[in-house]
């Protein structure tokens, strides 16, 4: 697996932004695959948070069905947040991040690839696991499609926004709590429209508007967030 990005590679004709993207994505996925606890901890956390609600609030099926969209979304949001801190930390600690910033490759592409890799390890499994939680919380079956689609559109945005917080705090020893403080306010719009989409799906209202808004947030995040993440990484590493 000699896919690491080096200066020599950039001189070769076949290296391109696309090649770089896939190389970084492959490397990050490989790293995650080798360290499985990082992969499973957010998922277990996701399940546990959702379990707390029937135990802590009420096990009534009617009540649970009503709060299910919110509970699943809040759990997904917290699980994403939990996994965010590790996004740049190991790279920062072993010096890879410094090398990445020094390399002539476009930082935008590298950062985007890292966030996509992170989403494939957190947001995507969470989305796939969501129907299970939906059933556990008695979410009506009409809402299932809306739940999965809203999570599919919303969780990449969560990863993009969270990466900004991770990049800002990577140089700090105790960044974990700080990330949630920085990032949670920015998550609120995604949460609002995500849960609203599920509720609309349950009651049979038109969904297109909510998905358009979630998609718009994702598009804006894809274009703007990597710039902010790159700038934040440069600040964190140089400081």
């Amino acid at each position, binding site marked *: 697996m000699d896919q690491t990005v080096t200066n020599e590679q950039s001189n070769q004709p076949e290296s391109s932004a696309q090649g770089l993207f896939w190389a970084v994505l492959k490397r990050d996925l490989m790293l995650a695959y080798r360290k499985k606890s990082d992969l499973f901890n957010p998922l277990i956390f996701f399940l546990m948070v959702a379990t707390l609600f029937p135990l802590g609030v009420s096990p009534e099926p009617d009540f649970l069905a009503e709060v299910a969209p919110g509970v699943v979304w809040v759990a997904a949001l917290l699980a994403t947040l939990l996994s965010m801190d590790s996004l740049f930390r190991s790279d920062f600690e072993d010096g890879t991040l410094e090398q990445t910033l020094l390399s002539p490759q476009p930082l935008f592409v590298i950062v985007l690839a890292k966030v996509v890799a992170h989403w494939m390890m957190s947001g995507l499994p969470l989305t796939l696991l969501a129907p299970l939680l939906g059933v556990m919380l008695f979410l009506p079956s009409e809402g299932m499609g809306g739940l999965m689609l809203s999570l599919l559109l919303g969780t990449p945005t969560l990863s993009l926004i969270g990466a900004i917080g991770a990049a*800002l*705090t990577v140089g700090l020893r105790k960044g974990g709590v700080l990330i949630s*403080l*920085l990032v949670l306010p920015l998550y609120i719009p995604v949460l609002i429209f995500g849960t609203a989409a599920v509720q609309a799906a349950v009651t049979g209202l038109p969904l297109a508007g909510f998905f358009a808004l979630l998609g718009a947030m994702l598009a804006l995040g894809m274009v703007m967030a990597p710039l902010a993440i790159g700038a934040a990484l440069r600040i964190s590493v140089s*400081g």
Partner: protein
Amino acid sequence: MSDKKKWMPRWFYQLASPRWSYEIMGKLLPGFVVAALLFLVAGTVWALAFAPADYQQGNSFRIIYIHVPSAILAQSCYMLMAIAGAIGLIWKMKVADMVAKACAPIGVSVAILALATGAIWGKPTWGSWWVWDARLTSMLILLFLYLGVIALNSAIESETTAARASAVLALVGLVNIPIIKYSVDWWNTLHQPATFKLTERPAMPAEMWVPLLVMVIGFYCLFSVSLMMRTRNEILYRERRASWVRELLEKR
């Protein structure tokens, strides 16, 4: 190079010098103190004693004279913080970083004031202290954004790194400002629509909105006073090793 500089006024470049900024703010400060006192006292007396009572809400509407200025100021203060942060990031201007840092605590207090007066106003009008309405929630998010910027700023030891990191965060948080601004137009909510618009005359009679305008100007003057005092403090602290600060302190 001198040709290039001409498109920016001279004072903009002079602001880059902490000493010059310290002195110019010192000269401006008394004027703003007087203006703030004048506008706030006149506005308060006018608003509480002479403005007519609302036909629906009676006298309870008078809290608008604190609520609206503080809500407007909370958003302006955030914009100023983000703009100053951007100037600090782009031109590496130390004074801009200090202005951005000075903005955050003022923003927190004004946002809390806006939320608190809103709650006090909401109790007699809507029958509850808090409603999860779009305007209220987005204002609460603004408060959290301010707190996040302060937390990040105090977590990073190096002053320049802290300033640049919080500037990035402030710029990212800027997306919330249009959400607050247009929340009453985009969503059907309990909160009444914007009181002031640049393009239209206010829906209230002049006897009601003129004192409000006076109060808004007074709040901006008070904000300027507070901001300049904080920035001057910050300049003195950061330049404490400079000879001019030592001379200044010895003179006292």
